[in-house]
């Protein structure tokens, strides 16, 4: 191979997402006739999840497939573009923003100073919410002890009246099981279900109302710039395809898991009404403005995003 690269994923090796991403690396190898060979490594194998950006810039890793929220501490703009809670009702809305609505250019403007090139966006889709108490709407969030990761998610839950608890992912299971926390922002339904989260917290909300992360496929900018045009194009198009592949297959898995859990009988899957979803969205969008004030880049994300949403009639 002309190019042998190491990409680190923010997913664990046994998860469906990781396996589908791994198929992408094989496809790239075939499409480039073996000129590009990517080894996809699971989360934490070279550096921790929040450290991949620095590692790519230093040339330790060549690229990553990771949730953009992890870099919120570097610039609030990452937090806003990674998970503008309430903006997306469907992954396709986000893909259109990234590919045609100015999102891609914005991502590159944010990433390039850090030595990265943004190839494209993917997402696992709308995450399902894990809860051990019945939740039918925003009012039920009051006082809810919810585990949320870094990024905007925590702030939005706090604004909605919940009490975010800041525990690491490795303690989510035991804390939910023993009712130290009532609910958790985990991931998509099928993965939550496989880990047994819905067996201990029997009131999941599906589809989720709270989060749909922007997962970036990015690589070292110098290495990208040195690539011939055809290889750049293959990478770009293959990531665009991966985004569809991933969403479609994870949605199928979600539906299978939902059907299986419904058959169990003791798991109560709730779906929020459009009215309640709109209420949550309104609360979330007030937080966008707050984040926008924290840096010039964040302001630009806010403006580009709201302009796109208005043009598409998704925001009045």
């Amino acid at each position, binding site marked *: 191979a002309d190019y042998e690269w190491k990409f680190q994923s923010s997913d664990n090796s046994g998860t469906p997402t990781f396996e589908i991403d791994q198929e992408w690396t094989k496809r790239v190898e075939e499409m480039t006739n073996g000129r590009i060979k990517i080894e996809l490594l699971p989360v934490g194998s070279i550096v921790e999840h929040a450290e991949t950006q620095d590692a790519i810039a*230093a040339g330790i890793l060549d690229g990553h497939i990771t949730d953009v929220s992890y870099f919120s*501490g*570097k610039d609030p703009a990452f937090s806003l573009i990674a998970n503008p809670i309430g903006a997306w009702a469907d992954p396709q809305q986000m893909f259109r923003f990234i590919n045609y609505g100015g999102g891609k250019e914005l991502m590159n403007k944010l990433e390039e*100073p850090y030595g990265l090139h943004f190839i494209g966006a993917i997402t696992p889709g709308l995450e399902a919410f894990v809860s051990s108490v019945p939740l039918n709407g925003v009012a039920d969030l009051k006082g809810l*002890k919810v585990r949320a990761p870094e*990024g905007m998610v*925590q702030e939005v839950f706090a604004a909605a009246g919940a009490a975010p608890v*800041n*525990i690491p992912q490795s303690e989510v299971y035991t804390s939910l099981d023993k009712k130290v926390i009532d609910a958790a922002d985990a991931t998509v339904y099928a993965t939550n279900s496989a880990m047994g989260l819905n067996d201990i917290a029997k009131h999941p909300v599906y589809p989720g109302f709270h989060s749909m992360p922007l997962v970036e496929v990015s690589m070292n900018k110098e290495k990208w710039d040195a690539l011939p045009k055809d290889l750049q194009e293959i990478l770009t198009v293959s990531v665009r395809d991966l985004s569809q592949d991933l969403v479609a297959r994870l949605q199928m898995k979600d539906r299978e898991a939902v059907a299986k859990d419904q058959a169990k009988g003791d798991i109560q899957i709730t779906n929020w009404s459009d009215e309640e979803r709109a209420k949550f969205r309104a609360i979330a969008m007030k937080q966008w403005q707050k984040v926008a004030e924290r840096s010039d880049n964040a302001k630009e994300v806010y403006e580009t995003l709201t302009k796109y949403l208005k043009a598409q009639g998704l925001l009045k």
Partner: protein
Amino acid sequence: MTNTPHSDPHAPLGTSEGDVAELIDDNRAVLPPESGVFGRGVNHLGTIFAIGFLCSMAALIFEICMRHIFDAPTIWAHETTTFLCGMGFVFAGLFCASRNQHIRVVIIYDMVGPKARRILNIVISLICALSTGFFSFAAWLMVKKAAFAPTGGIRLETSGSAWNPPFPAILKIFMLVIMVALTVQFLILAYNYFRQKPDLSASEAPARR
């Protein structure tokens, strides 16, 4: 054994429960003279980070009470605890280096005579200084990313949580400071081992571990 009122005064040495505590309570007994004034300074600073562990404990208890009794979890307790313990862990590496407390395998070290042991002490200290020197450079690379924006201005990396404290940047800067301090400490150790007369080194620097 002032702190162990119930301990048996006739217990054989090395087996009484007070023994270990006694060794470590008396700071001067543990601190080897080769660490120099620098080592004594590090040893004094230890108190701050030791108290940090107690504060971590207090923060967690406060968090449990707020969450369980008042249904109002804090946004700062877990991050503060992790930060204080992280600072403590990093400092503790220097602390143990100054006290010559790091765990070693002393099979060969104990077999050889005082001359060879002196040379081993010098060489080991120099190699350690060289590697911590490299880590200082590595930590500087990390600090450049954490403390400065790509445009060059000072911008401390934050945790990205709702509270959003600049703990990542502070911890990374602190790591740089400790790596430099470790290099200095190992160089001082190497110099002092070098100055020692070979026949004295065996009795003055017994292998603690």
